[in-house]
């Protein structure tokens, strides 16, 4: 295969929108209209799903009927398989929006003698196209013919003729092909389909699988050249970095309480914006989860629903632990207002986590989503993948006007570690940093608002206590010209009380 770096034409190539989330953005509007596109990849990488979604979206959303010619699965098998994506092929077939044709040849019952061509295939395809007025065609996987027909010379000549014929018919076609060892496809289909090639990949990194998609070539148009993670969820395929390209969610002016009175006061007494994203970062034991749970508790008290994704503790452990700080989550869980979803981050790939989050959020419709912690997801994944996933999740939550609270574990140590969060902090609207300040043989928990977009916020580093009454911010204690915290504060305060108690009567005289 040769690389094409052709100069971009001033005119835009006519394109057919696939309707697949994200793919149209990467390809700058879809697949080349009226031309064949090769989709290749190894077994189980989602070729058939991509083809099916291309056809279904075309038929349902774009008003372009399509023919799905399958060489590997029967029509019934195909409909059953894509039903998991919520596509009802049978119904679309009845509505004459889709035609399915299962092309099957059994090597054992075929004998070859003399000259032949594949006109039968052309006639079947042509008939299907004409019957429903198809604008789209998927051939999945035409390479299966190589196993069925012994004479590859005839087959190759006929395939070349087929792709030419598809172009002449002016249908937008997707041809799938199995990944070969040294070539894109096992039988070199890329030789015949030269306009657009999309490569799908299913890779295992650190025992976690991620699906990736790359546009290898796209003649006559600019396209995203990166590898993009994609996922196959209950609503079809979606390619990752996407919604972030369009930042058009509506900003809400409504404010919601953080559940901590003192913290609300740091945001001018009103808390954070509804639908914004809040990052709570801190080293171990600084109280991130507890602060996050305060958000939850506040939401549940307002008769709204909240959803927690826990990657460290089981639901009952969360409930038990939070009781120790005076927050009882059990009634919320029982009344169905709170859902705690606990899984191990290594259970599945990031994109699967994202799919799960999507579907749970869609089903539960919470006002608040807490992910505790996002940093645990990075154990098994690289930072760039995490950032893309988070971006996707945040965009999704913002579109739904759901407030997102994300905790993030930073390495034990000083405030300088703020920069380790640089990658994700830019995605966040509000960033709370928790820290333990060690001095005079004790640790003091502190909280500060590193940033909060679009609202005045306190610049103070505040001490807070975890008690049976929950999270409490201690009033700033600044007796002379410095802020005192911890037992220093207590000591100074009681000294001052004693002093003033002693002084008062004197003044009284």
């Amino acid at each position: 295969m040769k690389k094409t770096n052709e100069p971009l034409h001033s005119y835009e190539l006519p394109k057919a929108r696939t309707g697949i989330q994200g793919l149209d953005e990467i390809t700058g509007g879809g697949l080349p209209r009226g031309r064949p596109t090769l989709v290749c990849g190894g077994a189980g990488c989602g070729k058939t799903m991509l083809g099916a979604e291309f056809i279904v979206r075309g038929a349902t959303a774009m008003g372009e009927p399509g023919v799905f010619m399958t060489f590997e699965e029967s029509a019934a098998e195909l409909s059953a398989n894509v039903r998991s994506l919520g596509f009802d092929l049978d119904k679309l077939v009845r509505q004459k929006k889709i035609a399915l044709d299962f092309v099957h040849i059994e090597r054992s019952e075929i004998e070859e003698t003399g000259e032949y061509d594949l006109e039968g295939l052309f006639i079947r395809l042509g008939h299907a196209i004409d019957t429903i007025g198809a604008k789209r065609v998927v051939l999945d996987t035409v390479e299966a013919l190589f196993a069925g027909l012994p004479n590859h010379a005839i087959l190759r000549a006929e395939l070349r003729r087929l792709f030419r014929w598809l172009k002449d018919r002016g249908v937008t076609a997707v041809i799938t092909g199995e990944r070969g060892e040294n070539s894109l496809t096992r039988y070199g289909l890329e030789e015949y389909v030269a306009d657009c090639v999309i490569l799908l990949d299913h890779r295992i990194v650190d025992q976690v699988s991620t699906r990736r998609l790359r546009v290898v070539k796209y003649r006559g148009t600019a396209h995203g050249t990166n590898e993009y993670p994609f996922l196959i969820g209950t609503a079809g395929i979606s390619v990752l970095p996407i919604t972030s390209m369009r930042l058009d969610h509506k900003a809400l002016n409504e404010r919601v309480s953080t559940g901590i009175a003192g913290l609300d006061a740091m945001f001018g007494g009103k808390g954070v914006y509804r639908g914004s994203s809040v990052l709570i970062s801190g080293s171990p034991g600084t109280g991130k989860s507890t602060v996050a749970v305060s958000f939850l508790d506040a939401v549940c008290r307002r008769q709204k629903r909240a959803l927690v994704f826990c990657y460290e503790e089981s639901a009952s452990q969360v409930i038990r632990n939070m009781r120790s700080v005076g927050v009882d989550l059990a009634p919320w869980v029982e009344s169905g207002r709170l859902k705690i979803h606990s899984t191990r981050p290594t259970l599945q790939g990031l994109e699967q986590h994202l799919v799960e989050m999507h579907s749970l959020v869609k089903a539960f419709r919470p006002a608040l989503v807490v992910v505790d912690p996002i940093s645990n997801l990075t154990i098994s994944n690289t930072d760039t993948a995490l950032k893309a996933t988070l971006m996707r999740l945040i965009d999704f939550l913002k579109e739904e006007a759901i407030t997102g609270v994300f905790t993030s574990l930073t390495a034990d140590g000083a405030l300088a570690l703020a920069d380790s969060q640089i990658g994700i902090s830019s995605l966040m609207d509000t960033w709370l940093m928790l820290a333990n300040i060690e001095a005079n043989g004790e640790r003091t928990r502190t909280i500060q608002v590193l940033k909060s977009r679009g609202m005045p916020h306190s610049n103070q580093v505040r001490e807070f206590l975890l008690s049976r009454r929950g999270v409490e911010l201690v009033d700033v204690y600044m007796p002379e010209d410095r802020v005192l915290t911890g037992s220093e504060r207590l000591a100074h305060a009681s000294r001052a009380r004693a002093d003033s108690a002693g002084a008062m009567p004197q003044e009284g005289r």
Partner: protein
Amino acid sequence: MNAVVAAKTKKKAEKAAPAAEWQLRLYVAGQTPKSVAALDNLRRLCESHLAGRYEIEVIDLLVNPTLAAGDQILAVPTLVRKFPEPIRKIIGDLSNEGKVLVGLDVQPIGKAPS
């Protein structure tokens, strides 16, 4: 899909007894040299080896495109042995009589297969 095939088709071939011992179906796409050759080859072969015991049905896919799916026809010409079962298929212009006989599993009469 198979229901479509059951539809009555135009029979060009000679009508033998209602249930001939050998029921053959030849799929072609128009009167191309290959399909003409295939039909000629088939008739000759049947006359010499299956005289009086066969029935040939020619299906022109240009006329009846829906019938292609039923017998899973891709290549033309394709000869399908509908009966006796199991179904066998022979693709090509049937120019090699020996191979066709093997493909149909017909015992050659008189001379040995070439």
